[in-house]
């Protein structure tokens, strides 16, 4: 079962679509699940499918298609570094290397304390600030340097 809070949020989304097109809310529903749990398990996908009257496989298709859905636990804070062309030209490879040594994990991995997860991401549409990283898919930090990364991590450590 989806939590009370997620159900409320999804119901609010559903008002945006025709009553017989409930599946339109599938992406939002998956996002709410990820916001609450940090990742989306197949059980959650089945719950979303039941709630929206969709085939489970159809939800699975959506969840596995889009990159921003975490299909395994990715720590309390997921750092996603864009490695597409503009960011790479501006040094994204160095950013990844620095974060890897700093956190002691590789891409797609989570720190032992479960605090940070590191992911490679696709273009986030703000190439002017390359290289970019996104915190939990919500907050973008650009023009990254090693010092700036230290600063971001220090702030995250505090919160």
């Amino acid at each position, binding site marked *: 079962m989806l939590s009370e809070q997620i159900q409320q949020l999804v119901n609010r989304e559903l008002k945006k679509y025709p009553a017989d097109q409930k599946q339109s809310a599938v992406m939002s529903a998956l996002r709410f699940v990820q916001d609450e749990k940090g990742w989306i398990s*197949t059980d959650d*996908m*089945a719950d979303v499918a039941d709630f929206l009257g969709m*085939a*489970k*496989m*159809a939800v*699975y*298709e959506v969840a*596995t*298609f*889009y*990159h921003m859905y975490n299909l395994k636990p990715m720590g309390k804070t997921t750092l996603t570094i864009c490695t597409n062309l503009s960011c790479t030209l501006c040094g994204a490879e160095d950013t990844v290397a620095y974060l890897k040594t700093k956190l002691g994990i590789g891409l797609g991995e989570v720190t032992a304390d479960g605090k940070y997860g590191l992911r490679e991401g696709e273009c986030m549409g703000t190439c002017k600030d390359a290289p970019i990283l996104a915190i939990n898919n919500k907050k973008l930090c650009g023009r990254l340097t090693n010092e700036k990364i230290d600063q971001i991590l220090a702030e995250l450590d505090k919160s």
Partner: protein
Amino acid sequence: MIKIEIDGKLVETERGSTVMDAAHKAGVYIPHFCYHKKLSIAANCRMCLVEVEKVPKPLPACATPASDGMKVHTHSELAAKAQKGVMEFLLINHPLDCPICDQGGECQLQDIAVGYGGGVSRYTEEKRVVMSKSVGELISTNEMTRCIQCTRCVRFGQEIAGVMELGMANRSEHSEIMSFVNSTVDSELSGNMIDLCPVGALTSKPFRYTARSWELSRRKSVSPHDGLGAPLAIHIKNNKVARVVPVENEDINECWISDKDRFSYEGLNSAQRLTKPMLKQDGKWLEVEWATALEYVANGLHQISGSAGAEQIAALATPHSTLEELYLLQKLLRGMGSGNIDTRTRLSDFSADGKQAGAPWLGMPIAEINQCDRFLIVGSFLRKDHPLLAQRIRQAVKNGGEANLVHSSDDDLLMPVANKAIVVPSEILNVLAQVLKALAEEKQATLSADVQQAIGKVNVADSARAIAHSLADGKHAAVLLGNFAQQHPQASQISVICEQIAFLSNAKFGYLGEAANSVGAYLADAVPFAGDGHGMNAAEMLAKPRKAYLLLNVEPELDMHDAQQAMSAMRSADMVVALSAYKHHATEYADVLLPIAPFTETSGTFINTEGRAQSFKGAVKPLGEARPAWKVLRVLGNLMDVSGFDYDSSEAVRDEALDTAQMASKLNNHISGVPLQLNSAATVADLQRVSDVPIYYADAVVRRADSLQKTHDAASPCIILHGNELQKLGVQCGDLVTVKQGDASVSLAVAMDDRLPQGVARVAAGHQATSTLGAMFGTITVERA
């Protein structure tokens, strides 16, 4: 209509149709993988690229609407180059394992690669690998690397089967076809995905590695299972049925067949096949010669009819037997002076016998179902009993139709059901009376006095009113009675009331035929009220046990309405002759077992539920000493000195049994002279039994099809109750309980289904685990074990 030119040929095509449709009309072949005439357009394989004049780029023919004056070239330099390029892309990741691939020799990818591809591959990098999956016992998904992502299987699930069990997960190069978390594909139509797959990614698990397509010879046949009578192609290797695939007939099966039709051939090669006549002597079964066995039967029947009278002889046959077999069986019986013959083994209400104007049938051609816009489905486990008729209703509902359901179980029909009344079996008649009353009010029609009197006092519930409103609202309605309604103890009254409902809503009124030859059995006179009309029906034959029984394909404990009663009648009989393709339970009570040929080994005729007679020839030689039943009955007729048994072919029998010119006039669902008597609203304390016959237990052949028996639908039956009933009993799901009916009790696991009405216990019939229980309807008690 618009005119379009394809490769210089001018064709007229409908506005809104595609270039692919027009090409089809012009007889021009455009290579394709993802396009299928029965599925939605995906345009993702890009194989059908063609050149259209005044368009700078090649266009996919399957997704390009034809427009007036359009000039299309399918073989021009541009088109050929595009097709060759696409082919090269498709082959980049496709493994070169044709020599060990089951699809080899009947593979669209192979054929089109030869016809439209280049001779060599320029790709030298690593090919991608997709891990094998398991989706159940019917479809093999061991080599998903071969998949070209056409998504035909996904669209088939969504659009035809009504349930999306396969999907394409992940993105771009990582995308692959799979089921949700390794779940099995349980659709009763799943095998069609094997036919649809243009490559060797989805192949038939039972057929796998048993033959190459060019080693197989092909014979046409007809499905002996459900009432649809799907035309089949039987593929044979070494005088053995290797597999079964559909033959297209737009009026019957379109291009699909159900899994039961496709995979039950395994039952034909079962180890349980009876291959020699057998006689029981001093409690021991001996294999004997045909002559000995038949003489024994003839002598036995002579003796019994001489000493106790011919009416002590009774014959039961399943409606899966051919027209010729049934005709000869009744002729033999009546020739001996007994009218005790019946094929309606699972029915319980025979009060309409002799009052029917003709043989009960679908009431319309099968293809007309797609044109209907309103349905009232009464008492039917629709998907499992009639997989492809359900598919047609699904399409009609998708095109704006409304389905309404009156039933005692609310299984998912995989289509939207507009209104439903799910009630205990004894309430079904009342609900229908309510619908009739509401309909009469809505249409301001006057009913005949006796009907008016019978239904005058019923209170119309909202659900019944909604159903009536839905029916009244339609232009082409259909009222269809399923197997459950026909097996119901008040089947005749249900029919009468449904006929009235159909009349008032200007609807077609039909019976969904239970078996391949349910209609044929009536036309062959294999019913007790034919002939001089002095015969016992299936229920009477058991209620007043006879001294001799002839069983044609019948397994009494599985095929009869009341298995308990049937078995006691068999055990007390002096002589039981079982004509069967299988060495079944009859060894316990029979005296003679005669091995007869199943449908692939005999010629015969089935008349399907729309009244279409389809004759077929034997595809393979009978196994061992098994013989076609019509020949066995012919010899028995001669031995019994019954006149008119000198046929030299099954066609001669058919021509005598069937007057094709008169056939249409013999199909009639009208019943007259059955009085309506609604149930008083007495509350019954006991649970009422609701029985389905699970799809893979419905007939002798499919019961022995190993792969089907491993599927979800063939799971051993549970007793299914509403959650509140579970609470009352104080048991949990999965607990074993004692289920009692009549003198017998069995131990079954409990399952919960809150969609069932309270007060019923759903216990499947047709299965060994429940075969000692009594009638398919009636009260049943459940106790904690």
